[in-house]
């Protein structure tokens, strides 16, 4: 199944579980979802888009958020959870303020991706895959081919797609993310 090579397990822990769930689909976000419904013949087709809206708003998708999505899209929470866990980009745990995805698949691996990954793990302070740095700034994940194999090593920092990252270039990139 499509899982991260290692699951994020943050220093932030499972924070937020005790707090009551603040609904995501109110106001503008609700209006966005309603617009989406009009573009598909069935509501369930809006499940992935709805999950993206949650992650954009909250940074990750909690069990309560899954239940809310289930409710607004007309599915069961168990079904939603089954879908969320199939895809690698949805976070089911809190992650660092900046989420870094690094490609290490063969074409990039041939060009030194593993060294770039090591530099990222060391210089962010994350130390290991899936861990959040002690300052809460970063979580680093190893991912499979990012579709930019001619520009090794591509990384994604949040929504910023950065090409041709070498170990020497890591420090300057990290500086841009507070």
């Amino acid at each position, binding site marked *: *199944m*499509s*899982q991260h*090579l290692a699951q994020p397990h943050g220093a932030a822990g499972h924070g937020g579980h005790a707090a009551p769930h603040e609904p995501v689909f109110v106001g503008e976000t609700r209006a966005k979802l309603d617009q989406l419904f009009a*573009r*598909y*013949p*069935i509501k*369930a*087709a*809006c*499940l*992935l*888009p709805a*999950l*993206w809206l949650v992650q954009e708003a909250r940074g990750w998708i909690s069990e309560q958020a899954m239940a809310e999505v289930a409710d607004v*899209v007309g*599915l069961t929470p168990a079904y939603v959870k*089954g*879908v969320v866990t*199939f*895809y*690698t*980009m*949805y976070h089911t745990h809190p992650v660092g303020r900046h989420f870094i*995805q690094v490609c290490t*698949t*063969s*074409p990039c*691996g*041939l*060009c030194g991706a593993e060294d770039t990954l090591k530099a990222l793990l060391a210089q962010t302070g994350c130390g290991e895959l899936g861990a959040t740095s002690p300052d809460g700034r970063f979580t680093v994940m190893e*991912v*499979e*081919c*990012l*579709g*930019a*194999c*001619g*520009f*090794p090593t591509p990384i*994604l920092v949040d*929504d*910023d*797609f950065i090409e041709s990252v070498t170990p020497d270039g890591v420090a300057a990139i990290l500086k841009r993310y507070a």
Partner: protein
Amino acid sequence: MGFPHASHPRETVVLSRYFGDAGARSYRGWVERGGYAALRQALGMAPDEVTAVVKESGLRGRGGAGFPTGLKWSFMPKNDGKPHYLICNADESEPGTFKDREIMRWTPHQLIEGCAIAAYAIGAETCYIYIRGEFTEPLRIMTAAVAEAYAEGALGPNVLGSGKRIDVVIHRGAGAYICGEETALMNSLEGKRGNPRIKPPFPAQAGVFGMPTTINNVETLAAVPHILTRGAAWYKALSLGNPKSTGTKLISVCGHIARPGNYEITLGFPMKDLVFDLAGGMRPGRTLKAVIPGGSSVPIMTAAEIEDCPTDYEGIAAKGSMLGSGGMIVMDDSADMVYQIWRLARFYAHESCAQCTQCREGTAWTTKVLERILAGKGKEEDLQLLLDLSENMTGKTICVLSDSCAAPIVSGIQKFRSEFEAYISKARKPALAGV
């Protein structure tokens, strides 16, 4: 064009003509460069005539399987009263392939125009463009371009004043290689886990939302406007090898190569010249060892095999491999074939959707055995075990991801057996820590 490099005189620049030209991104910019004339032309023809032109051109799917595009369109039922759908497959996740990304980044309207023409030809009012979730920049550019096309009347209820309705909806994936497989993509679009479906029914009978559906790759659809404006005969004449392989193809070249990038060739172009001339050949002091010519899912070719291989569907098949998606992974003499094949097997093990036993077990087991060999704990009989496992993974599953894992393993053992044996006999130091 070998973006980010200037175009090479031996390329045939059609799809990539405006790569690197940010002015081509806007609707106005695209129209100034001749854009949307093909859509206007198509709307003045009967849908069947459009399909006939594409059929005549010889265009074949650029997503991997190479199925004739016009023929695929002609499978769509006529006057059945059901909604039809077009899907553009922009999931591009095949290791070694990065061409669709450039089409979307630089020429979003080239793709939108192709989608609109195809939708018209198959009687669809809606086209979903499924873009992999990691493609944040193409997603932004495509979203803006679609909005602009609506504002300019090139999409919507009255496309270019024709009275025809065509809607284009961008749908973002969420990370899963398997969603590039067409029926997995349809499930994903329906809000499900991306598990491939058993065929039949084929998409033209019952595709997304249970309705007749055509699915095409980004590069396939981007070629369509050019075929309409310049004619099927022009496209068909673009063929240096077999007449069944026509047109231009973007080849993504990566790995151990001096100038990685996308090169647009006329099909049939010599593979050796592609590697050594267009893409600049090896890095200084290195020699070529192997090429995986069609994305990671196809059999590995040796340096000797590319010597006289035309880069087209038949030419590569004659050498026992496939053109696939046109993602070319180059390896020089510094590459450890066992390690690279293990890394590919690990990719497939990670990406298996786990529905089929042969795939779920086979991808994991072959990865383990390769890991053991790399750790210096391989046994003599492991190579036969890998071949047996691969045999059991080929032609037996719902989709071909399982076969794709077996392809590099089988060809790797056949062609680079001594490298495996060196690990097993301990002539070579372990590359991985113990397992």
